[in-house]
């Protein structure tokens, strides 16, 4: 897949203070997560990509467009849902979304049609003639999402989209993000400090801490890789079982007499392991695939970052 965002030593500085420092990474997933604790620089990175903040060092490209010189092209391709509450209180949802569509370049009649369509899509169809000032926080979040997608962007940037939402509203937002991702009509850059949101929706993740990149993970690959790691617990007296497993092409490391960690080769068929156990009269009491959750990845990245600093 062609890269969506290429960070080339990107740095942002406000009043001699480095907010982002030497970010280098290529992100190309259908849904990319930006993860980090509060104050890590996630929103600053998004705002810099959109050209709101000046670049101090390096540069970045969005779909090949340089953020230093081609901001207009980038903004034409992107839809942005900010973290803060953004709306115009005296406007009805439909006229607000229509105006935003027109500002993105949609002709007036197309903007009106799309405004109705996206408001139904996000679930605000029945409330589309109400003034935005009367909306609840959850409804305003959905209206923000609607304005971000009204013009059919190639990239949607979502900054903390589930902030302040109750569990059903959060579920709805996550479902919408899933749907958009799976439509393959756009790519998503999701910025969140909530691991669950990123884990549920993203296939790539960039973890930031204190303005620095501490880890990049391709979650799809990690998930695939995890499938190749096993933790085995056996019962029965057979000292040679580990050696026999190795003969199947696996790499084994015994953690105790009856426990071992196994790395499976690409073409491994699990039935062979059971057959071997049967032949050697070994009971397999427990068999776990390693599950490295995003939380593990995140915590490891934070630990590494602490160790470095």
């Amino acid at each position, binding site marked *: 897949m062609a890269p969506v965002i290429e960070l080339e030593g990107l740095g942002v500085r*406000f*009043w001699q*203070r480095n907010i982002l420092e030497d970010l280098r990474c290529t992100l190309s997933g259908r849904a990319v997560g930006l993860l980090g604790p509060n104050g890590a620089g996630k929103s600053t990175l998004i*705002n810099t990509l*959109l050209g*709101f*903040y000046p670049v101090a060092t390096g540069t970045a490209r969005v779909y090949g467009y340089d953020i230093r010189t081609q901001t*207009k092209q980038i*903004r*034409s391709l*992107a*839809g*942005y849902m*900010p973290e*803060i*509450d*953004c*709306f*115009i*209180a*005296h406007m009805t949802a439909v*006229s607000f979304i229509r*105006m*935003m569509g*027109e*500002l*993105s*370049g*949609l*002709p007036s009649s*197309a903007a009106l049609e*799309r405004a*109705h*369509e996206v408001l*139904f*899509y996000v679930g605000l*169809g029945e409330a589309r003639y109400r003034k935005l*000032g009367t909306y609840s926080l959850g409804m305003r979040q959905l209206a923000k999402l609607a*304005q971000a*997608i009204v*013009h*059919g962007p190639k990239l949607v940037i979502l900054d903390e989209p589930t902030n302040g939402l109750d569990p059903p509203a959060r579920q709805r937002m996550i479902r919408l993000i899933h*749907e*958009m991702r799976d*439509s393959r*009509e*756009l790519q998503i850059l999701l910025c969140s400090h909530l691991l669950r949101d990123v884990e549920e929706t993203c296939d790539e993740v960039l973890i930031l801490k204190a303005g620095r990149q501490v880890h990049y993970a391709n979650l799809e690959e990690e998930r695939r890789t995890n499938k190749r790691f096993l933790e085995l617990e056996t019962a029965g007296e057979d000292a040679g079982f580990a050696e026999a497993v190795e003969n199947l092409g696996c790499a084994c490391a015994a953690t105790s007499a009856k426990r071992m960690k196994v790395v499976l080769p690409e073409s491994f068929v699990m039935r062979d392991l059971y057959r071997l156990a049967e032949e050697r009269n070994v009971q397999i009491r427990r068999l776990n695939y390693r599950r490295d959750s995003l939380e593990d990845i995140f915590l490891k990245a934070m630990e590494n970052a602490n160790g470095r600093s």
Partner: protein
Amino acid sequence: MAVHKRSYRGYPGQLTPLWSRCLIITRYAFKNVFQWKLLTSFFVACFIFPLSCAVLIYVNHNTRLLSMFGIRSLLNIDAGFFFHFLRVQGSLGFILTALVGPGLVSPDLANNALPLYFCRPLSRTGYVAGKMLVLLSLLSLITWVPALLLFLIQSILAGGSWMGANLWLVPNIFLGSAIEILVFSMLALALSAWIKRKLAAGAALLGVFFFGAGFGQAANAVLGTHKGDLLNLAGLIHTVQAHLFRQAWRSAISGGSAWVALLAVSGFCLWLLARKVRAYEVVRG
């Protein structure tokens, strides 16, 4: 497909040209402005005086009507007429600015809507130009546009000799109104950008004009100088207009200094706008 079953789909159609985006802001701002019936009524009322002037010019050239009352001429249509016309319309323009201006930027700031504008291919200049176009067009419609129409009516009725002798008024009518419109619009937008509440922004605009003049007078009296007149924006505008229309005007400030002062005020307002109208403010931490 039923609307409730719609799934996400992109937009494959044509896009409008980039230059036209700021006009969208103007269109929506106009729509918002004319939702207020009081303002619409006031705007209509602003045309009463130009209409009366047009009737007066017509009567002035209707010798049969004048002879019925035994009068040769009602008034002399010259530079003084247009100077006073612009003074009256300028005052109405100021009230119109105080009513319209504060509602232009402040609602966007009050609800943090600026990032939503600027994440699109719309520059800050485009945004300000779009908002300012509302004031520029409304104020133009009640100042130099009717003034030029009156000039045209007078030229048609009085003949080519009058027109030839007074042709120098045409650029001055435009310039005299333009500087007034520019100062009003810039001040209104700058105050609207810095003060989130509409009412407070309107009050601040009145304050800048009236308290500025008062403060200038006080400075003159205390310091024994005339430099305080530079704070009297209305006085400066009238000095410039008197200078353009070659009218006698009691002011210690020269026409040139008044021009410079007004352009400096406009420049300062532009700087204030540039500081405030941005997607996000970076706060020194």
